[in-house]
């Protein structure tokens, strides 16, 4: 209790010490902790803390590499530009809409897949693989493949629609339909991961709870709502928050499927940041947009940390 080191106790240190070893090869606990955590801390410092401070700094600059002018302090000019920028509103609105549609969407589909995968299969690997492959498939590949699925002439979706007697649809000419196709692709990609997390949660629920409920005469529906759902809540909350943050950053799938088109109708905030930075080389405005993105995801993260603290689920 009275120790001034970082440690609560040194009780687990073995007694055998060899005094001739240098401090470096057999350090005490405090030194050791610093040594072990230093590489991670340095890496996070160089790759996150520095870039983020740089980002915030640049967002106050007028820094366009195409103009050839040196960076100039511009105050809030970059941020003031946003309200009058229709593409900013469109991209932000699309990002929020994608989040609001695909997060619950992938939860529902993922839950259904998890319940199916939780059935007592004799051979487990085909089911496991059919959840793992979509997870491992690069998002950009998924975007490309789904773009091809929804192709108006040769796409398999229109082929299936034709076979069941529905009219062919030109998906990527209409903003709404293009947007729907993008959301479907994202839900497909994200739901298998959701399913894996939920499946793992389902498998930790003791069977005896259901048996007891059977004895008490509770039906399947009641069991689902009164045993399964409450016990899975912590798992679902964590998965949802990660999904939300990933959805806010949506880039690969719309970039590959529509390139943001028609026009900028299906562009996302991440795509707009990319375009301003890499294509227009307007680093000032790109940074300001990224600050908005950063703020959005920090908000979700703060919520997340509060929730896991609240439920005591932090391991």
């Amino acid at each position, binding site marked *: 209790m009275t120790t001034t080191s*970082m*440690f609560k*106790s040194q009780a687990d240190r073995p*007694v*055998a010490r060899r005094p001739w070893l240098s401090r470096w090869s057999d350090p005490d*606990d405090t030194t*050791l*902790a610093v040594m*072990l955590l230093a*590489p*991670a801390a340095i*890496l*996070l410092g160089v*790759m*996150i803390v*520095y870039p*983020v401070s740089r*980002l915030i700094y640049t967002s106050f600059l007028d820094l366009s590499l195409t103009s050839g002018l040196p960076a100039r302090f511009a105050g809030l000019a970059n941020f003031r530009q946003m309200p009058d920028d229709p593409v900013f509103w469109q991209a932000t609105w699309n990002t929020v809409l994608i989040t609001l549609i695909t997060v619950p969407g992938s939860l529902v589909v993922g839950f259904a897949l998890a319940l*199916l995968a939780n059935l007592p299969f004799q051979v487990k690997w*085909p*089911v*496991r*693989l*059919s*959840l*793992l*492959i*979509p*997870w*491992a*498939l*690069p998002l*950009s*590949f998924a975007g*490309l*493949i789904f773009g*091809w699925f929804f192709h108006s002439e*040769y*796409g398999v979706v229109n*082929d299936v629609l034709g076979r069941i007697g529905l009219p062919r649809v030109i998906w990527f000419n209409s903003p709404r339909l293009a947007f729907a196709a993008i959301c479907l692709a994202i839900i*497909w990609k994200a739901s298998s991961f959701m399913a*894996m*997390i939920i499946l*793992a949660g389902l498998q930790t629920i003791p069977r005896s709870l259901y048996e007891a409920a*059977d004895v008490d005469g*509770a039906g399947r529906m009641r069991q689902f709502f009164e045993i399964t759902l409450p016990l899975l809540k912590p798992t679902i909350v964590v998965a949802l928050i990660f999904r939300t*943050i*990933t959805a806010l*950053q949506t880039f*690969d799938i719309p970039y590959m499927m529509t390139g943001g088109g028609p026009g900028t109708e299906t562009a996302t905030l991440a795509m707009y940041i*990319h375009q301003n930075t*890499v294509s227009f080389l307007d*680093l000032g405005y790109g*940074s300001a947009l*990224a600050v908005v993105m*950063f703020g959005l*995801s920090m908000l979700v993260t703060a919520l*997340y940390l509060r929730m896991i603290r609240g439920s005591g689920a*932090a*391991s």
Partner: protein
Amino acid sequence: MSTAAASTFDSALSGKPLRAIAALILIVNGLFPALWILLTSFKTEAELTQKPITWLPHAATLRNYIQAFSDQPLLTFLFNSFMVALLSTALTLLVSVLAAYALARLNLRFRGLIMSVIIAVSTFPLVTLLVPLFETMRALNLLNSRTALILPYTVLSLPVCTLVLTSFFEGIPRDLENAAMIDGCTRFGALFRVVVPLSAPGVFTAGILAFVNSWDEFLLALSFNSNPGLRTLPVGIQLYQGEFAFPWPVISAALVVGIVPIAILIVIFQERVVSGLTAGGVKG
């Protein structure tokens, strides 16, 4: 009455036909896109533009695979993806093994805080790194280099790997380490000779997660490395599309080549991947 009803419902739910339907739904949902690409990769260009479209290739050909390698430097893309993924995975593992050991074994006073920081970092939006890293890499002349990708990818996987490894290290009895130290090992000696070998499955799992993360990343690879010789696979794939042409059979062949390495990893190590994903964290 309800017990009887529940048990018939129960047997219907776990009955064979239902399981078969469930398996079918899962497999079609999970594998159809990859299967479709595989089928397309064997079709000729002429067959592709037939209407109505064909599902199974009529005259299967391997020419698309040859073309995928000759039209674009596909081998180079593969090599770049491998180099970037392997190096960033190695770096991630080294850093996260050390950090996870400290978190699992030492009675850190700030453990809760450090854990919160790691979780917060795991939700860090990579997009926001785009602008400052682009600026920095440009200034340092590191655009179009593998380093420009290896470092950010290491940070991308660091939190998840640290969480996976921490939970694995916690599962290894302390007595083993203490015994090794009494026998004359230093703490580092005990870490690398006792703890790491015993948690090989955990290290491996973390490694696969890091590898897949790097293999899949697109935005930074697209923004930093525009030089064809340095493009990774997801970025290189785009080069097959011409201004007007969209040679789907060839693109499909290239996609299959890009999926196979990951698919092999997943097929061999499926159980470890699942345990890693659910033990350490959630990102995808």
